[in-house]
């Protein structure tokens, strides 16, 4: 199959099955099981399609005549698409037990999930600001609704409200920025803008500078960096656990997919202007996130707050991207993967052991889980270690890359600062471990049901470990080196 066909087939399939499930859901023969498995199969198929194209470096414009060069399918987008789809698949797979426990996962929820993935797929392929905006909005709006899925819950509604309101507010900044860029560059195509920047002086780029900053603010809003990410704890808390996992793991990657593309194609020229802003953003994000994470009683909120800190690390890498050196961009992709799998696993475990509904999982709910369910406890521990950046987990390798690239770009102090917030993060991540292992048990052999969810949790844990130590010396399974190569190919395929 040609890459172009796959580029069309993946979003097409997603869209098709979304619409199919939407209609089929009205039929009397529809059951939750059927909808679930249809979605799962769709995701699996599309994932396999996408992943078949990541092994080599390629870049094509998808049907340039029809889409006017707005969509680009390259290794970069293929990588990200595979990530989203894998993430969506994993989220759903792990969430099975949660979905069984609750009543509000109707067929629309699967449809919305597919729609949002569709949006993200397009977003990662978008090479044009308006397309990106539309894709982003498709993804966002689906997620807004997913957040408010449990409409009988006041918390969920409130989270829905906040996310929607602030999301629209942020979107308007994006539009404003886009308008400013359009006003100056007369185009919204990223390549066109890059060309304009290349051929003009700074004084005739002022609107682009301002507009780019506004777009960046939207990105920062989506990845929840301080001060734009005040919503994150509320929304994560309000949303049901699989959705939170989805947002934290998958949606963030999608935003970064776009951010990286726009950064590497256009912003990189303004590196000197933006670096201090991003560094400042990274610092306040890391401080703010870790301050909030330290005080949480609920594991979910702690994870939410800590996801802010991880955004801070990503910003460190973003600030360290230089024209001459794209290690930082590789680092971002690697870190995204690392964070995605760990966070998905962590939220997945929470959703697996939660009783459904919007009951918070506090630290003391985890007490002594290890005695009762050693495998779950071990997996959660591995996820925590990975999030904390403990060696032998993929999270460590991710941090290692980010700090290395920061030092390479001369931001040694920033790296040190990152290390210090990582130190603080040890506290709240290990607190989970302490509760899991060292406290007296409160669990009386509860059966959490659905063993496949457990299997996927364990698989994720293995991926986390393998990504931390894996090497093809031992077994012929792709390890760190292969991931590295993938990130490199992705970045190089952007054609820079």
């Amino acid at each position, binding site marked *: 199959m040609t890459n172009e066909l796959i580029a069309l087939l993946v979003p097409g399939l997603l869209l098709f099955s979304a619409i199919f499930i939407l209609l089929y859901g009205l039929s009397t023969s529809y059951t939750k099981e059927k909808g679930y498995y249809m979605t799962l199969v769709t995701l699996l198929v599309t994932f396999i399609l996408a992943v078949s194209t990541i092994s080599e470096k390629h870049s094509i414009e998808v049907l340039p005549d029809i889409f006017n060069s707005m969509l680009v399918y390259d290794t970069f987008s293929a990588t990200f698409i595979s990530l989203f789809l894998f993430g969506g698949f994993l989220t759903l797979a792990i969430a099975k037990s949660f979905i069984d426990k609750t009543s509000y996962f109707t067929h629309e929820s699967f449809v919305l999930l597919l729609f949002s993935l569709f949006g993200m797929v397009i977003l990662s392929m978008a090479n044009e600001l*308006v397309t990106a*905006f*539309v894709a982003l*909005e498709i993804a966002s*709006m689906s997620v*807004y*609704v997913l957040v*408010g899925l449990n*409409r009988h819950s*006041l*918390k969920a*509604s*409130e*989270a*829905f*409200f*906040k996310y*929607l*309101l602030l999301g*629209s*507010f942020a*979107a*308007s900044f994006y*539009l*404003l920025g*886009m*308008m400013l860029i*359009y*006003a100056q560059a*007369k*185009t*919204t195509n990223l390549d066109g803008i890059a060309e304009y920047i290349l051929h003009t002086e700074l004084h005739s780029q002022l609107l682009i500078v301002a507009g780019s900053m506004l777009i960046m603010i939207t990105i920062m809003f989506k990845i929840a960096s301080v001060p734009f990410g005040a919503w994150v*704890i*509320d*929304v994560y*808390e*309000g949303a049901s656990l699989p959705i939170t996992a989805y947002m934290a793991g998958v949606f963030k990657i999608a935003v970064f997919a776009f951010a990286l593309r726009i950064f590497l194609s256009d912003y990189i020229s303004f590196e000197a202007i933006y670096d201090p802003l991003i560094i400042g953003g990274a610092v306040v994000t890391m401080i703010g996130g870790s301050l*909030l994470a330290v*005080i*949480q009683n609920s594991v979910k*909120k702690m994870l939410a*707050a800590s996801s802010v800190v991880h955004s801070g690390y990503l910003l460190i890498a973003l600030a360290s991207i230089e024209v001459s050196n794209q290690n930082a961009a590789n680092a971002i992709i690697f870190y995204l993967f690392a964070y995605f799998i760990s966070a998905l696993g962590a939220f997945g475990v929470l959703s697996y052991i939660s009783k459904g509904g919007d009951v918070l999982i506090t630290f003391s709910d985890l007490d002594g889980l290890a005695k009762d369910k050693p495998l779950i406890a071990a997996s959660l521990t591995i996820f925590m270690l990975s999030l904390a950046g403990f060696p032998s987990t993929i999270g460590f390798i991710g941090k290692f890359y980010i700090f290395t690239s920061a030092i390479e770009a001369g931001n040694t102090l920033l790296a040190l600062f990152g290390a210090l917030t990582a130190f603080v993060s040890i506290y709240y991540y290990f607190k989970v471990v302490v509760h899991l292992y060292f406290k007296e048990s409160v669990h009386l052999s509860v059966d959490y049901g659905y063993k496949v969810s457990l299997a996927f949790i364990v698989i994720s844990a293995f991926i986390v470990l393998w990504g931390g130590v894996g090497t093809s010396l031992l077994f012929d399974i792709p390890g760190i080196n292969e991931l590295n190569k993938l990130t490199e190919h992705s970045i190089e395929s952007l054609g820079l």
Partner: protein
Amino acid sequence: MLQEYMILSIILFCIGVVGLISRRNIIVIYMSIELLLNAVNLSLVAISADLADTSGQVISLIIIAIAASEAALFMSLFVVLFRNKSSLDADLFDMLGSKK
């Protein structure tokens, strides 16, 4: 001529921002958001005319479409929120958050 449009657009945008932050009624807040979008639309159309480039107008059409879908979400939001609290005062919805 473009400059005046732009100034008007920016004034509108600022009104939108201030409205969003200062008003407590969710419907008014929603209206402020519409104002933000339309401020952008206005300037896009003006720029499009100024540059003699139609894509600006196309973009504004797309934005209107997105605004419409946003409106749909907001409508459902009003219903959900009103059902919960019998009020649409934004400040009433502060159950979440990590204040101690």
